[in-house]
C-alpha cells in the first residue's frame, strides 16, 4: 500500500501520516489494521486533544476489546475519571468504505509531464484514434436518447455477464 492510499484509509493527509509516524516511531506499517488504529488516534487527538502517544495506546486498547451488540466499546481512560465510548462498528465500516473507494477510484496520477494542450482538439482526437464521426452522430441525438442508448448497452452487458 502506498502512502497516498494509506492516508485515504486513515482519512488524513499524507503529511499528517508522516508527522504522526515520526512521533510514534517508524515501525508503523501501511496496513489496514494500522490504518484502523491510526484513524481512531486521529479522532482522539483532534476531537479530545489527547497526545498522539497516549491516543495510540488508547486506540490499541479499544480495538483489542470486543464491542457490545451495538458496536460500542466502553473503557476507562486515564486514572478513571473519564469514560470513553468508541463506536468500533462505525470505525471499521468507514475503513471498509474507504477501501472500496480506493478499489474503484485509484489515486495515482499519470506519470510524467502533463500532455501539451493541442491547438486543435479534433486533430488530437483523430491522432489518438477516436472516431470523430461517432461523436458527431452522438451530438445529433438529444441527451435523453444518449442516456437511453447507454442504458441499453449497460443492460446488454449485464445480460451477457449473467450468461457467462
Amino acid at each position, binding site marked *: 500500500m502506498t502512502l497516498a492510499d494509506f492516508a485515504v484509509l486513515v*482519512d488524513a493527509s499524507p503529511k499528517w501520516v508522516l508527522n504522526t509516524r515520526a512521533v510514534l516511531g517508524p515501525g508503523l506499517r501501511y496496513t489496514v489494521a494500522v490504518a484502523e488504529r491510526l484513524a481512531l488516534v486521529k479522532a482522539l487527538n483532534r476531537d479530545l486533544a489527547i497526545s498522539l502517544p497516549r491516543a495510540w495506546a488508547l486506540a490499541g486498547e479499544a480495538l483489542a476489546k470486543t464491542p457490545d451488540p451495538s*458496536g460500542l466499546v466502553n473503557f476507562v481512560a486515564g486514572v478513571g475519571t473519564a469514560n470513553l465510548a468508541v463506536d468500533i*462498528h*462505525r470505525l*471499521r*465500516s*468507514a475503513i*471498509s*468504505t*474507504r*477501501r*472500496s*473507494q480506493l*478499489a*474503484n*477510484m*485509484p489515486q*495515482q*496520477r*499519470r506519470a510524467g509531464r*502533463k*500532455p501539451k494542450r*493541442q491547438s*486543435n*482538439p*479534433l486533430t*488530437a*482526437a483523430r491522432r*489518438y484514434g*477516436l*472516431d*470523430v464521426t*461517432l*461523436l*458527431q452522430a*452522438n*451530438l445529433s441525438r438529444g*441527451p*435523453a436518447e*444518449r*442516456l*437511453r*442508448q*447507454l*442504458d441499453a*448497452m*449497460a*443492460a446488454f*452487458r*449485464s445480460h451477457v455477464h449473467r450468461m457467462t
Partner: protein
Amino acid sequence: MFEEIIKALVAAKVRFVVIGGVAATIQGSARFTNDIDICYDTADDNVERLAALFSGWHPYLRGVERGLPFVFDARAFRITPIMTLTTDKGDIDVLDAVPGVGDYAAVFKASEPVRIGAVEFRSLNLEALIASKRALGRPKDVEQLIELEALLALRRQQRRNPT
C-alpha cells in the same frame, strides 16, 4: 438502469447532480460506463433522503470482499462522504464534491438541466467535466479528456455553423 436510478432520486426529492461517465454520455461522449456517479447536497435533510432511498436497494461496497463491516445510514455519509456502492439497481458512486469543480454548490452552478420525459434533473456541463478530468489527471481521465475536448470543439463548430 441509469434512467431508473435518476427517476427514483428525483421522485425521492434528493438534491443531486449527475457527474462522471453518465454526465459525459449526456454531453455526447461515446465511452461506455457501467456506474452512475452523483454529487449530492450534504444538507441533513438531503442526506437522510438519500440514505433512505438507497437503503431499500441493499447497498454494499463495490470492489471489496463480502462480509466486511458496513453501516449504511445518514451518519455514514457524514463520516465517509464518498461511497462506491453496488446496489440492486446497479453500481452507484456518491460524492460530496467534484475535484476541479468544488462542492455541491459549485457543481450545481456548473450543471445544466436535462429532461427525460416528465423528469428533470441536473447534469454536469461539458466545461466542468473537462475541468474535473484535468484535475484528476489519472491515465483514464487523460484519455477521456481528449474525447471531451473534441466534443467541446464540435459543439462550438455547430454553434458557429448551425446547418
